[in-house]
């Protein structure tokens, strides 16, 4: 069985520079009108501004990592494992490269080994939690894991139509065996592999010829809208309900026992549907800064947890569930006793 692992500290970084979302939607030629379930994306997304930068994603990750290390009062020597859980393309393409080695170098974590979780969409946060908790609790020589993500979307690819608009940013957390703070009591993940290509980035490998124009567009996130509408839209909240029931059953808890649900900042319409479908009261679902920040991929899980703490909504002993959909093919959750 898994030994107790807690979150020793968490931090995030958002670049100062911001852009107005209505300008972004115009620039990216996002369609007008309704999509599935009579949703008007432009009207119902509920995001007004996003953070943007020209910096590479590894730099955003580094700033978040430096903040979390300072907050936890740690040096690189204290870290045994470094895991990159970024879910969108990084400085260089995976799985050949990840930012984990770069971060190890920058914080001088000379005892650590590095790797990257290469799956999950926004659920990569939970995939990383699951993997890291299993590893450090099963090996006596390992105590601390540093998990981080750095996300910068390419130019003209801020909008993940029909879901959300993305901010650039980074996040990091330290997991420690035997940590009494934010103890991760349960983690659950559902993977639906047949939806592996609802969201995808084609890459240079999918170019149609060496003379293809605008190769940069091949690094944009693509959505198979038909597959999305025919599958994800129809099953999303059924899957959330299944996931919530499953993890609560494992934990021996009920929906009412959870003090706060940390949910991703996808859109206003998504949140409304989530609350309606799950019966969880709106005030228990934390996405407070949706309008001013939008969605920061998998980092939403860390950012919203941290913000909820700072807002006084999570206090010692609070029972918190972090949960998300991951790129249409995964649904994941963790229960944390703060």
């Amino acid at each position, binding site marked *: *069985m898994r030994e107790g692992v807690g979150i020793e500290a968490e931090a995030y970084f958002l670049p100062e520079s911001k852009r107005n979302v209505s300008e972004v939607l115009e620039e990216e030629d996002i369609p007008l009108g309704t999509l599935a379930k009579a949703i008007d994306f432009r009207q119902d997304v509920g995001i007004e501004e996003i953070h943007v930068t020209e910096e*590479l994603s590894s730099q955003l990750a580094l700033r978040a990592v430096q903040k979390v290390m300072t907050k936890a009062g740690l040096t690189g020597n204290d870290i045994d494992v*470094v895991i990159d859980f*970024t*879910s969108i*393309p*990084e*400085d*260089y*393409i*995976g*799985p*050949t*490269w*990840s*930012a*984990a*080695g*770069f*971060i*190890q170098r920058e914080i001088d974590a000379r*005892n*650590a*080994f*590095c*790797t*990257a979780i*290469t*799956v999950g969409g926004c659920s990569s946060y939970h*995939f990383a939690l699951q*993997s890291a*908790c*299993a590893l450090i*609790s*099963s*090996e006596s*020589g390992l105590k601390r894991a540093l998990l981080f993500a750095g996300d*910068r979307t*390419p130019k003209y690819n801020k909008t993940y139509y029909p879901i959300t608009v993305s901010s650039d940013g980074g996040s990091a957390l330290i997991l420690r065996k035997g940590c009494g703070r934010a103890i991760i009591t349960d983690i659950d993940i*559902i*993977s*639906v*592999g*047949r*939806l*592996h*290509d609802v*969201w*995808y*980035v084609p890459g*240079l*490998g*999918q170019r149609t010829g*060496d003379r293809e124009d605008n*190769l940069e567009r091949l*690094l944009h*996130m693509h959505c198979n809208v038909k597959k999305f509408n025919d599958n994800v839209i129809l099953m999303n909240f059924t899957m959330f309900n299944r996931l919530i029931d499953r993890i609560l059953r494992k934990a021996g808890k009920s929906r009412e026992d959870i003090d706060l649900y940390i949910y991703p900042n996808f859109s206003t319409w998504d949140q409304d549907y989530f609350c309606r479908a799950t019966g969880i009261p709106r005030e228990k679902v934390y996405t407070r800064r949706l309008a001013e920040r939008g969605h920061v991929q998998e980092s939403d899980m860390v950012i919203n947890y941290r913000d909820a703490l700072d807002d006084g909504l999570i206090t010692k002993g609070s029972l918190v569930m972090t949960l998300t959909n991951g*790129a249409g*093919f*995964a649904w994941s959750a963790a229960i944390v006793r703060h």
Partner: protein
Amino acid sequence: MKTETGSVAVRIVSTSCCLPPREMLVEDVCKSEQVKLESATADGLGITRFRVFEGKWRSQLALAAAKECLKKASLKGSEIELVVDYSALPQDYVVPSWCMSNKIQAELGAAKAFNLGFGGGGTTNFLTAVKFAASLIKTAEVKNALLISADVALPGNRVINPDTPLTVLGDGGSAVILSRGRSGCEVMSVELWSDGRLNDVSFVEGGGLANPDRLDLYRLRVDTAMYSQDSSLDTLKAVTRRAAENAGVGMDELSTFITPNISANDRESFERVFGLTLDDPFGANRRQYGHMHGADFVVNLSQVASIRSEKRSRFVAVCSHGWGFSYGAMIVSM
């Protein structure tokens, strides 16, 4: 003797590789990639031919290997609870936004599984995948894990590097099933260590955020100025010693050392630094398949399993230097 698994034994239940049928000679690829191959360099490579994948989706290689692996283990897709991708080269779509393990889960009908992938460590991704999968098995979250890879060289990018050839890439897929409560070779320990200073010793410079439209940089390259063979092998020896200690096994009890099929020179240097007989036990695999990243370990491990001798020690080390960045060593009891 002890095991990191405590009371839970994690075993390699079955292994399989899928090698595409088409063969190509190294001398021909050198011509097409305009590589001048001196005879001394050719001897140092020790690779004669390799396999070439001609389909559109490289994941087909992993799928075929996975199906064979399940068959060998007498398992159904529905009995797999974890699928882990340990590929090293660019995939069907850009990673980490896309991961092959999801596609394989769907194709195998592994409805109960959740899917993982590990990247950034080159060939050592294989040992990383084993370590994490074993942890999930030990903590009782998973009983049967399927590990998969599919590595296909980028077009015109088989000789790494063209100016100073270190290896020649062959195409191949592989699969391994790890389980508890079933018979097979026991994973005694896996030790990993990284040197972040060399994080960019081997990578594809084009196609990511830094150089999104640089087709000329869309190729794997190893930085030979950064990579020091001798110091890397010394470090690998230390990592292997730690893995052996964790398994409660002496270095002198290890009968076979499995390494990736990078080159004859790489293997010879490994044998020299580790104080082994210069017998190049996996030379035949290297000569006919080239370097297939994680699949090399599976090909070589299968060979050891098929010819194990009653007279020899049953402990085997699986070692990877990851070009000086990502080191790994696993001790297996055959």
